[in-house]
């Protein structure tokens, strides 16, 4: 299959392979400092131990103290050595090269692995700088393809200029520009101010759920301190709950703030460029055509400030720990978020969507929030919105809908209602038209299946399979 592709995207069709790509000739190694960077976190720990150990001794506090530290130090040292050793093997055995239409990575000491990534299947390319690598001026290149986490390729570590050049080359080739293209120019769209980010993270955590969790313990503690409480055990439990919730909160705040720090969105011909991070930084490039679904979301307590965030589904970005990868914009004025959402969808105006509401009897199924459900669609995109206190607008282009589902529980069927779900790849966006009239939902399902079919056909006509090489 790959062999058959090669002639199509061969260098012969390009202006000439004369100017070698900035990444150099084929068969590259990772950077020499890789082992150190891979063992970096633990090495840092060891260094910290050593420093504190000498400090202790320096101040002459106690010999016992350093005696207690020693076993931990030894363990950390051994772990660091092992990690560095593993890193060395990884460095020794890994080679990558960019060939005609694909990126090839050979790795493994005992079990050799050759991974090939077809560049026309590329979903996004990220340059990540974990703290340990950043110290050495290194960067990780992560290439996401459609599929699971396992099918993404990580090159750890390259020096920063090499990583950036390789990213430019991969994206250029993926867009059919041929090798040796310089990084496309970009137009900055927005930089999130630090103050706004911190405030938004705090306000987002201040949800009704948190209020419910905290209201009991707070009452107990307050009544105990004011002298009216007479349940020492209950007070103890309440304090424990408070402290643990606060610890979790602090951790979450710290993590979100540092990952989303100085969030920058820029626009370039090869896609949206996203940069963020305080200690570990990340630089993602998402081609616009790879956005599977998008949503503009306003948590409850953001609404007085008129803020909104924009999140996307991209194939290959799994959920869980990589959740920040799906963030397109952590906080911005709502108008801007709507504008960006429309822009990603290909220049639609979210304000102009005509929303249709579920029938009145849906109030029996969803008493308060049925009124705020709404769906709309146009030539290219299906929209859905929901939320009474928080507001969410979700959208998926017709050609990106995977499958369409109709669901109705017993109560909904008794009311003659049904919900329509448009499946997308894994991510925060789940588009659904809830509590519609059953017949209408069925009609919407058929219409959507038909629209998706037409959109797919159009897309297939517009973009012939295989990498396109511009003359």
């Amino acid at each position, binding site marked *: 299959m790959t062999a058959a592709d090669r002639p199509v995207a061969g260098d012969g069709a390009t202006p000439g392979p004369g100017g070698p790509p900035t990444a150099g000739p084929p068969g590259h190694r990772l950077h020499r400092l890789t082992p150190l960077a891979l063992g970096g976190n633990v090495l840092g720990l060891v260094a910290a131990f050593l420093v504190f150990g000498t400090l202790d001794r320096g101040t002459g506090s106690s010999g016992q103290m350093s005696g207690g530290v020693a076993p931990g130090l030894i363990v950390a040292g051994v772990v660091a050595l092992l990690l560095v050793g593993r890193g060395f093997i990884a460095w020794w055995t890994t080679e990558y090269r960019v060939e005609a239409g694909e990126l090839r990575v050979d790795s493994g000491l005992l079990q050799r692995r050759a991974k090939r990534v077809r560049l026309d299947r590329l979903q996004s390319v990220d340059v990540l700088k974990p703290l340990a690598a950043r110290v050495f001026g290194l960067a990780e290149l992560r290439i996401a393809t*459609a599929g699971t986490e396992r099918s993404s390729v990580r090159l750890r570590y390259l020096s920063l200029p090499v990583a950036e050049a390789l990213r430019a080359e991969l994206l250029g080739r993926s867009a059919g520009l041929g090798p040796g293209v310089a990084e496309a120019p970009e137009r900055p769209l927005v930089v999130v101010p630090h103050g706004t980010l911190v405030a938004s993270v705090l306000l987002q955590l201040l949800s009704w759920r948190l209020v419910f969790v905290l209201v009991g313990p707070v009452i107990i503690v307050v009544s105990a301190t004011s002298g009216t409480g007479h349940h020492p055990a209950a007070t103890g439990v309440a304090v424990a709950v408070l402290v643990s919730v606060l610890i979790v909160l602090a951790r979450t705040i710290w993590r979100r703030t540092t990952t989303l720090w100085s969030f920058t969105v820029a626009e370039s011909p090869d896609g949206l460029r996203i940069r963020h991070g305080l200690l570990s930084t990340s630089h993602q490039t998402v081609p616009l055509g790879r956005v599977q679904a998008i949503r503009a979301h306003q948590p409850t307590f953001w609404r007085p400030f008129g803020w909104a965030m924009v999140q996307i589904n991209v194939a290959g970005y799994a959920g869980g720990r990589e959740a920040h990868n799906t963030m397109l914009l952590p906080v911005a004025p709502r108008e801007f978020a709507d504008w960006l959402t429309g822009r990603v969808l290909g220049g639609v105006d979210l304000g102009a969507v005509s929303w249709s509401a579920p029938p009145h009897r849906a109030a029996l199924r969803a008493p308060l929030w049925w009124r705020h459900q709404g769906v709309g669609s146009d030539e290219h995109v299906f929209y859905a919105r929901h939320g009474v206190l928080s507001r969410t607008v979700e959208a998926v282009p017709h050609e990106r809908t995977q499958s369409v589902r109709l669901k109705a529980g017993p109560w909904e069927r008794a009311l003659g209602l049904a919900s329509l779900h448009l499946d997308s790849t894994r991510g925060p966006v789940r588009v659904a038209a809830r509590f519609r009239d059953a017949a209408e939902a069925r009609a919407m399902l058929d219409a959507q299946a038909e629209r998706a079919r037409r959109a797919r056909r159009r897309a297939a006509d517009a973009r012939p399979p295989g990498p396109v090489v511009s003359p």
Partner: protein
Amino acid sequence: MRRAILAVVLLPAAGGAAAGVALTGGAPGWSVLLGAVVIGSAWAWYLVGRNWRSWAYTERQDDLLVVHGAMFRKLVVVPYGRMQLVDVEAGPVERLFDLVTVKLHTAAATTDARVCGLGPSDATALRDRLTALGEAHAAGL
């Protein structure tokens, strides 16, 4: 098949309740329990039948349509071009009754398209047709 599972689960329950009635000489608590179990199993028997009848699938020109569920009705439309892979599975109980399940996967994890309770030959035929159609309609992501 589900009726068989149901019988396996419910018979001991009914037996236990009946034993309770017999041992206590017809204490009202046990009698009520026995009645509940009997009524419950009759209802479940009926539901399982309805549920079984509710499974259906159609191969349309561009997509596969699967309907199932008596209480919770679900209808899934999977375009052939969106299918990433087709699984043919058989669990231990299914193997006992010589049945298999054909499962369709798309790039979306939420797609829940299964065709249950097919005979092995039907299932392989369906799988082959689906993969052929999937290749013919293949659209990227």
